[in-house]
C-alpha cells in the first residue's frame, strides 16, 4: 500500500513539474493580431489575417527557450478594401485556393539587449524561407506578450506579380497577448 501511494505521489509530482516546465500559450485570431502593410508608389494598403492557430511554448519561464508554431489560414486574409481582399486571394498574390495555409515555426531564439532575436521558417505559397526579426517578448502573471514589426521581401516566396508597381518589401506586424 505504501509503495503504491509513493508511486502515485511520484507520478503526480513528475506531472506537476512537467506542466510547470512547459507553459503553452494558445495563439488564435483572438489573441494574435497579424497584420501587413503593402506599399506602392502612390499609396499603401493595410491588411492581415483573421484566423490562425498555434502555440507559443516557454520552458521554465526562460523566454530564450520560446518556441512558436503557428498555422495561418490564408483564406481569412483581409484588406482595407473589399475588392483588394478578393484580388489578394487570387493567384496574383496568395493564391488561397491552391495554398490555403501558411506556417511559421521558430528555429532559434536569442536574447539581445532589450529584445529577442527570433529566427524561424516561414512557409507561404509552398515555399519555405528562413526569416529573422527582433521582437519584444514578456511573460508575467500567466500572460504572454509578443510584439514585433519587420519587413519581408514578398518575391522570396514567388509572390512576384506587380513588380515595379507594388513594392517588394512588405511590413509585417505581430502583436500577441495570450493567457495560458
Amino acid at each position, binding site marked *: 500500500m505504501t509503495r503504491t501511494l509513493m508511486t502515485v505521489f511520484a507520478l503526480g509530482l513528475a506531472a506537476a513539474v512537467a506542466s510547470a516546465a512547459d507553459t503553452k500559450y494558445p495563439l488564435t485570431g483572438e489573441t494574435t493580431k497579424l497584420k501587413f502593410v503593402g506599399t506602392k508608389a502612390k499609396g499603401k494598403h493595410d491588411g492581415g489575417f483573421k484566423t490562425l492557430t498555434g502555440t507559443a511554448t516557454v520552458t521554465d519561464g526562460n523566454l530564450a527557450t520560446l518556441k512558436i508554431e503557428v498555422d495561418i489560414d490564408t483564406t481569412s486574409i483581409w484588406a482595407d478594401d473589399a475588392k483588394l481582399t478578393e484580388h489578394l486571394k*487570387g493567384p496574383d498574390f496568395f493564391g488561397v*485556393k491552391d495554398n490555403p495555409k501558411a506556417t511559421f515555426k521558430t528555429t532559434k531564439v536569442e536574447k539581445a539587449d532589450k529584445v529577442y532575436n527570433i529566427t524561424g521558417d516561414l512557409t507561404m505559397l509552398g515555399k519555405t524561407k528562413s526569416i529573422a526579426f527582433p521582437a519584444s517578448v514578456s511573460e508575467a502573471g500567466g500572460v504572454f506578450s509578443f510584439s514585433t514589426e519587420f519587413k519581408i521581401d514578398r518575391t522570396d516566396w514567388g509572390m512576384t506579380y506587380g513588380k515595379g508597381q507594388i513594392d*517588394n518589401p512588405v511590413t509585417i506586424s505581430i502583436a500577441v497577448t495570450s493567457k495560458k
Partner: protein
Amino acid sequence: MPLPPLKNTIEALLQDVLPAAGGATLIMCLFLLLGRRAAAIGSATAIVFAFVWANFSLDNSISSETGNLVWANTYRLLPWKVDPSSTSVWHSIPRAALILVIVGLLSRWCGLLAFWYLHERRLPGATLAERGSPSFRLWWGANLLVWLPRISAVFVVSGWLVSEKDANESPWPRFTLVATMLLIWFILDVLARVREGGEIAAYLAMSLYAAGVVLLFSHSARFMEIAVSVGSAMFEIAIAARVSKAYVSGAIPAGVAFLPGLILASRPSLPTTEVPAISYWLVALAPLALAPFLIPFLSRKNGWYFRLIRAVLVLVPLVIAVVLAAQHEQLPFDEE
C-alpha cells in the same frame, strides 16, 4: 461596361502587347524570308519566342548569394521551372504549350512523310486521281500518324493541368479538358491547313483577348496578362500570314494549351467571384463554332460572306461571355 484606367491600359500595352507582338513579328518575318513553306515552323517558333519575350524580366533574377543571374527567376508572369511540390497547376501551362507545339510540328511532318513515301511506293508516277481508293486509305493512315501522337500529347499534358485533388475527386475535369483541347485543335488545325492567311490565328487571338477580359473580371490580372500576351502574338502571326498568304497552323497548338488552360484548368485557382461559369465555357468553346466549316462543301468557301459568317460565329459567344462577366462583376481597378 467600365473600362480599365488609362495607366493600366498603357502598362499592359508596354508589358504584354508590344513585347509579344514585336517578338512574333520579328520571328515570322525572319522565317518568311526563307519562303512561304517556312511559315508553319515560323509561326510555331514565333509564338514560343513571343511568350518567352513577354514573360522575361530581369527583376529579382540576380542571386543574392552568388551574384549570378538565375535563369529560373527571370520570369514575369509564369515560372519557367515547374516546382513538383507546387499545387498551382497553372504553372504548367507554358510547358504544356511547348510540348503541344513540338508534337504538332513533328506529327505533321511524320504524316506528310509517310503519305508521300507510301504513295510513291505503291503507285510511282501516278496522279492522285489515277490511284483511286488506295490513296484514300493512305490518307487515313497518314492522319492516324498525325493524330495519335497529338491525342497522346494532349492526354499527357492534361494531367499536368488538373490538380491531383481534383483528379482524385472526379475524372470529369480531366476528361472535359482533354475533349476541349482535342476538339479545338482538330477544328482549327484542319481549317488552318485548308486556307492560306491568318484567319484561324485571328479567331484564336480574339478568343484569347476575350479570355483576358473575363479573367480580369475574375480578379486575376496575371492570367489576363498571359492571355493578352499570347493573343497579341497570335494576332501578329495572323497579320503576317495575311500579308504573305502563308499557312500558319504551327502556332495553333499554343492556343490549344493556353486558351483552355487559362480559362478552364486554372479556374479552381481563381478567387471566388460573381463571374458566371457560362462565361468561362463560352470563351473556351468559342472556336468550336467553326465546326460546320469542316463539312467539305463549306470548308473551302473563302468569299467575304463566309469569312464574315465565321467571324460572327466566333465573336457571338465571346461577346456574350464578356457581357455576362461585366454584368455580374466589377473590374478591380477603381477600388484598389
